[in-house]
């Protein structure tokens, strides 16, 4: 069952995969180009019925990585889509039009790390106070 789904993923979007890691039997981390994100998210969410658990933004000093964690509940697999955004060009397409549940988490990554999500319907502060200084991102590590 799990092998089947992984094979499906590799068949359909395998050419777009830049890097594939399987550190444990139920964890997969796959890196994609940012242009392919919408297509990958649409495929995982709509066709394979995966659930978006959440997204994490990680600052690795040279780049900002956005990780979308998709859970396949029936087979117990956590599939992570990793997008690497080289600084200073940290713009990525928003997946909120595809998955409504991603609205808050993208707003959070926007205010914590300064990632710009294109086509996000409502990209404003979520957690921090309204007059938080512009251009000051608490989770950035390059200061």
């Amino acid at each position: 069952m799990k092998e089947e789904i992984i094979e499906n993923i590799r068949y359909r979007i395998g050419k777009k995969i830049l890097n594939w890691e399987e550190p444990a039997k139920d964890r997969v981390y796959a890196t994609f180009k940012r242009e392919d994100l919408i297509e990958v998210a649409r495929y995982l969410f709509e066709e394979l019925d995966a659930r978006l658990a959440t997204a994490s933004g990680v600052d690795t000093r040279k780049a900002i990585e956005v990780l979308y964690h998709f859970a396949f509940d029936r087979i117990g697999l956590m599939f992570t889509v990793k997008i690497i955004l080289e600084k200073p060009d940290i713009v990525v397409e928003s997946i909120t039009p595809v998955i409504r549940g991603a609205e808050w988490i993208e707003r959070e990554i926007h205010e914590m790390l300064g990632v710009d999500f294109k086509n996000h319907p409502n990209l404003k502060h979520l957690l921090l106070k309204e007059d938080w200084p512009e251009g000051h991102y608490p989770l950035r590590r390059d200061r």
Partner: protein
Amino acid sequence: MSHKVIPIGPYHPLQEEPEFFRLHVDGETVVDLDIEIGYNHRLIEKISESKSFDQATFLVERICGICSTSHPLAYVQAVEDLAKIEVPQRALYIRTIIAELERVHSHLLWLGLAGHFIGYNTVWMWAWRYREPVLDIFERITGNRQHYAMMKIGGVRRDIKEEDIPWIKKTLKQLKPKVDMFKGAVMDDPVIHARLEGIGILTKEDIKNFCALGPTARASGVDIDVRRDHPYAAYDRVEWKVILQREGDVFAKAVVRILELYESVNIILQCLDKMPKGSIDANIKEIPPGMGIGHIEAPRGECFHYVFSDGGNSHARHKVRAPSYMNVPTNKVAVVGETISDATIILAAVDPCYCCTERTAVVDVKTKKKVMDSADLIRLSQEKTERLKKKLIAI
């Protein structure tokens, strides 16, 4: 349009995260809802980067007082996933027991508050009274009523003493008839049926679109439960079943929680019987670089932690996602089209902080004048129950 806006919150004196709801109403009907959060935000993800791996378990415990096992458990599982740590068997069973005790106390707490907001203060007092023995068990096992500090990377911090087990079993068995009473009080009461059935309906599509979790999803017939889907701790070694309802309304959510109480008590009793002897700690010294994901079924749904380490003493990134984060946005669909007096219980149904309603005021958009005083929403809700009661008696 000449609709009015009802701001709810941000202060809530009772439960979880303070949220701020802005209800747009047209007459008595809710037409839109804005949700604003962040009044409880403490930037824990940032503070966590300055704590060592061991210290962070205490920090994540303080994310939420009701889920003070769920977050540490998800966190230690993330680190164990990163470092490939084998946890001793006895520790796994103790983790299961603590996590299920937490589910019992959390569901009882929600039941009480839900009762309070539809005007059944008796249910509130009952539920909280029968919650006390559960807290006593916590105090006996862990030394504290809340913030148990039981989870540790590679095991648990304290053992359950053999001489305590009969007392724990006795206390839990005494809880069962009380839950029976609740089940009767909620499921057979015509007023509760009239108040809760058919309101705040979430369809399967809504659940999928918003990626909602836990009892909220299971009440709409979406069969997800991390305990079964990605087994952790000792859940694959005990007999239990996932509770499902189809309707998706507030009543179904209440039923799911009540029936889960039985399952939880059963799981704890089985674990106490099956628990093997042995060590409770794997004595972890170093955490290698890498990344790990830990997720568990908290009382409100899946709780998710992602840990990224670059080989130092503390993590380079620690991402926390609590279940309410995914569940609260569903209010946007659930509450639209319902009346103001039903709004309070619908906003509560996903089990967020709900007590924001204690500080409400109805403001007319045009004149910016207060037309309703604070706490009136709860009164409205309670009055509706009274009306229904009288109507039913008349029949």
